């Protein structure tokens, strides 16, 4: 402790997630087990994993939820997606900082899509420009 540099902030959570783990997670959801809901993920359908690749437009680094606005181009059409996250303290403890994403970065985000079909996603993980993958939530609550 002491001196310069970033201090360790990890309190649980994951460094990186492998595909089999995610497949297992979504299998849980496909079974229809949605009895227990985190108030902020209720609006999202965890049984429909969605992956987006797009350009970061803005990052709202704020409580209670940080947001990433992402422009995704598919079939010639550009759609603005709003990706919801945990708040900055949770994200920092998962390895994020306020400057992890910069407008202009092309990233891949996996998560749960809004139930109403709108262009909104609840983030599960982000693959950054340097190919690092960061989770967007730890297994805990407020």
């Amino acid at each position, binding site marked *: 402790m002491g001196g310069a540099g970033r201090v*360790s902030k990890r*309190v649980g959570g*994951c*460094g990186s997630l492998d595909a089999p783990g995610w497949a297992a997670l979504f*299998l*849980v959801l496909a079974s229809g087990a949605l009895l*227990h809901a985190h108030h902020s993920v*209720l609006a999202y359908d965890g049984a429909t994993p969605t992956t987006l690749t797009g350009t970061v437009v803005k*990052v709202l680094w704020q*409580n209670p939820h940080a947001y990433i606005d992402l422009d995704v181009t598919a079939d010639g059409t550009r759609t603005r997606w709003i990706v919801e996250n945990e708040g900055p303290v949770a994200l920092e403890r998962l390895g994020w900082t306020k400057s992890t994403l910069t407008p202009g970065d092309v990233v891949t985000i996996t998560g749960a899509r809004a139930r109403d079909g709108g262009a909104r996603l609840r983030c599960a993980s982000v693959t950054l420009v340097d190919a690092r993958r960061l989770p967007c939530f730890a297994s805990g609550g407020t």
Partner: protein
Amino acid sequence: MIRTSLFAALTVAATAALVAQEPIPQPRTSGGCPVESRAFHDCATAKARTFKPTRTRDGHPDFQGYWRSRNNGIAYDVESGPGSFAVPPTLGEIIEPADKKIPYQPWALARRNELRTKGFEDPQGHCAPSGAPRKNNTLFGWRIIQPRGYVVFLYESMHDYRIIPTDGRQHLPKSIKMWHGDPVGRWEGDTLVVDYTNLNGKHWFDMSGNFQSENIHVVERYTMFTPDTIHFVATIEDATMYTRPWTLNFSLERNKEPGYYQLEYACHEGERDLQHFTDDTGRGESKTFREK
């Protein structure tokens, strides 16, 4: 990496639980005790009988330092459950009654089942302070300091606090109802007992619709059973909602992460602010989900 395999184990466990209908395997311990609520209670109680804590200047156990909840998904549901998107499986935290379910009166059970599907109505999602005992379910940890005559919890989440006087003073008049309630503490040997009245009963115990009424009365007990763990027990009474009192417990563990630093977690900021809009690194506006 340890944490990766832990998460993978949880997801595999959750899947296995659904497919095979078996109890979720629970390899973890806290303070040398299994974390399943009943087994934990018996083990921690036994260890506490012979454990001698270090003491503050006035002779009470020294709880000071950084702590966190041994959170087994109980923030989501105090009863047991298999988990779902962004929600880990949980073995639950109830020890009494024996079936590990909240002993609801029929009207209250019906209401709970209705609220279970309306997680957006959880007052915690609206930034209401969690109160007792729920605040100790937080994943974000807290610091305890012990000024003379007090035990004070400084929570990271929502910069919340508990100021617990240990002089067994009188409670506030009944007409004052608060989210935090009125905590009055006393030491019973090496156990800190905290009695909460004046709770407003507007909160939930978790994110799964387990609601409260204003007749709620909570008693918490904190007993150290190893240098780095506290046995936390809470008993909840409310004759208008339950058929009997019920009790939960879980482990509180010291956070000994080198360089650990409490960060500020202001529950709301940019989302409600129409003035400070920016385009990039932003404090800006966001829409919160209040679907009703």
